[in-house]
């Protein structure tokens, strides 16, 4: 029977760190894609306004569309963050469970 609570907690913390670290790139990657596509849309809007394809009212309306899209993007970031937290927490629980099961079998 060997159950070292300090070692178990350290393993759990290590798993959380690794899991969050590996997945944090997903948030950065999504945010970069959002920003890149926003840049392209704003450039298109500016070109269309300069060429007279849209007027000032159209431009204001499109900026409202951008606000709505930003709201959706922030909800996506919330979903990605929850996925990271859920995966990290469940990985830590798995470590604790495996350690306890190993201690019982000894």
């Amino acid at each position, binding site marked *: 029977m060997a159950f070292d609570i300090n070692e178990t907690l350290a393993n759990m913390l290590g798993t959380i760190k690794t899991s969050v670290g590996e997945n944090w790139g997903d948030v950065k990657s999504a945010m970069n894609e959002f920003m890149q596509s926003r840049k392209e849309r704003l450039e298109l809007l500016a070109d269309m306004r300069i060429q007279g394809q849209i007027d000032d009212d159209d431009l204001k309306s499109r900026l409202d569309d951008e606000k709505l899209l930003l709201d959706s993007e922030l909800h996506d970031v919330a979903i990605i963050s929850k996925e990271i*937290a859920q995966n990290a927490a469940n990985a830590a629980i798995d470590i604790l469970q495996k350690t306890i099961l190993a201690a019982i079998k000894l």
Partner: protein
Amino acid sequence: MKNYLITLITVSILLTSCRVTLLPNYDASVARQIDSTNKMIDRFYLNMAEINSAQRQYSNFVPDYVKIEVELISILNENKARTLNKDSEKISQNAFDEWEKYKDKHKADNTIKDADIKLNRIYMDEQLLRLRIGEKFKQTATH
């Protein structure tokens, strides 16, 4: 020693059923519906762009507007019905609100400019892409 063992077994049993759940399960049918609606919207605006601007009266497009509106309402309702799904519900609402705005403008103007066709398609595609990204991360969440 006996008490210690019982405690470990009890904790182990509790952990077996203890999972952290912050997101709903991935739903492949919702993901497919998002993709098919996105295609319908692309087809709608690409066809519209091919039609002479003099023939772009709102009444010529009502059946397609209704068809796509029904799909967007269905996606919204599917997302509302799932627990822990407030974020996707809000994105679905945003996509629906955007669609309604574009439809109402076309109805009020009774025509639509080339630039608006292009931009409406881009903004609807972006909203549905945000919705699809949300579904993708539910797929990789552990349960």
